[in-house]
């Protein structure tokens, strides 16, 4: 006779301890700081949302503090931020974006319905973080079109950029097929310098006998 058969509940006790351990494990499991809120298909459709972008001319009011429901986040590193940034913006480097404190702050801002505008050196730099936050359910996060570069070039007259199209991405700037065809490439490019003819003028000799030794 085996010894453990003296206690018929033994297996049950071990099993229940096991179950309790698993349950405790589940509760103490570290929660990820962020979760995807949108599935893959929704993440694709949100890309076409025109309202998810922040336009350079909208900055004017933020800089003058005429609106108080917009916060600017500069996601470049501290050094480049120190060299120049949009007034009233705050520096949160892209490396620190998913810190717990920053996520909490973003959640608070979301609750208060305050728009968060991300910007980098160009639109491309902020595009990734913007997409990530959108997918994680932060509907208040927008991306600044043109980035800091466009802003610094046009900061004198931001209102005039309303009619400017040059910062908008995604459109072809050339007729590709025409430009890349062999017939086109023989044409001299306008920006290549035209070489000047060199004319050498000799000095004329004096006609009459002019002096001598």
């Amino acid at each position, binding site marked *: 006779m085996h010894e453990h058969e003296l206690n018929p509940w033994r297996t049950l006790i071990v099993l229940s301890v096991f179950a309790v351990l698993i349950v405790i494990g589940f509760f103490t499991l570290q929660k990820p700081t*962020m979760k995807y809120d949108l599935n893959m*298909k929704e993440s694709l459709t949100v890309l076409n949302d025109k309202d998810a972008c922040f336009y350079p001319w909208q900055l004017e009011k933020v800089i003058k503090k005429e609106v108080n429901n917009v916060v600017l986040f500069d996601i470049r590193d501290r050094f480049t931020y120190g060299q120049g940034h949009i007034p009233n913006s705050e520096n949160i480097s892209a490396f620190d*974006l998913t810190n717990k404190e920053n996520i909490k702050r973003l959640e608070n801002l979301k609750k208060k319905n305050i728009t968060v505008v991300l910007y980098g050196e160009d639109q*491309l730099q902020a595009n*990734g973080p913007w997409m990530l936050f959108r997918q994680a359910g932060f509907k208040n996060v927008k991306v600044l079109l043109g980035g800091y570069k466009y802003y610094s070039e046009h900061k004198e007259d931001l209102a005039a950029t309303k009619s400017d199209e040059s910062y908008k991405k995604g459109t072809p700037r050339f007729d*590709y*097929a025409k430009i890349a065809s062999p017939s086109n490439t*023989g044409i001299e490019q306008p920006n290549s310098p035209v070489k000047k003819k060199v004319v050498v003028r000799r000095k004329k*000799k004096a006609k009459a006998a002019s002096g001598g030794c």
Partner: protein
Amino acid sequence: MNRNYIFLTILMLFLAVGTIFLNKTEKLKQIEPDKLLWEIIQPTRYVSTDQVAKMIIQQDPSLEIIDVRNEKEFNNFSLPKAINIPVDSLLSETSLENFGIPGTKVVFISNDDIKADQAWIIAKRLGFDGMYVMRGGLNCWMRTIIQPVEPPEYAPLTEFATYEFRKGAKLYFTGAKPENTETKKVKVIVKRRKKTKAASGGC
């Protein structure tokens, strides 16, 4: 004794049934948001137009160019051997087959780099590796490879080297003949001096 075995059998069966449900809930594997952000901020995910041009010219077999513009734009012009997958149809099963092949380098291109970048992020969320974005897109391609601009005289030597490479790449991609250097030669007009008429002194 028998009861123990029954217990264990039931437990095993229960767990086995559980695994079936696990597989069903996660159809597309995704990486965690934190990891996705980490991947997003790596600058190594961008390639320049020169690098892409070099790979095409060298006929790198591992290169796979994905053009994310729409079909009409793709038919009008694209890079050699590019595959057209518009952003909207990125998630279809046939297009997903193009990603994650070991040893290939997938390069996303679009008019500018934003759309290509977005496609990269969507694909990255699904955990695919070996993907890149061509910085500047086709607009930059035209400015650098098809219409290279000569650097100013004070530019560093490396810029002249890139310029020379781009001029060669342009010939490769457009099929044009090299420019005739003969006509470009500077004409030097030398004016002969007139002979003096009279004997004009001397010693």
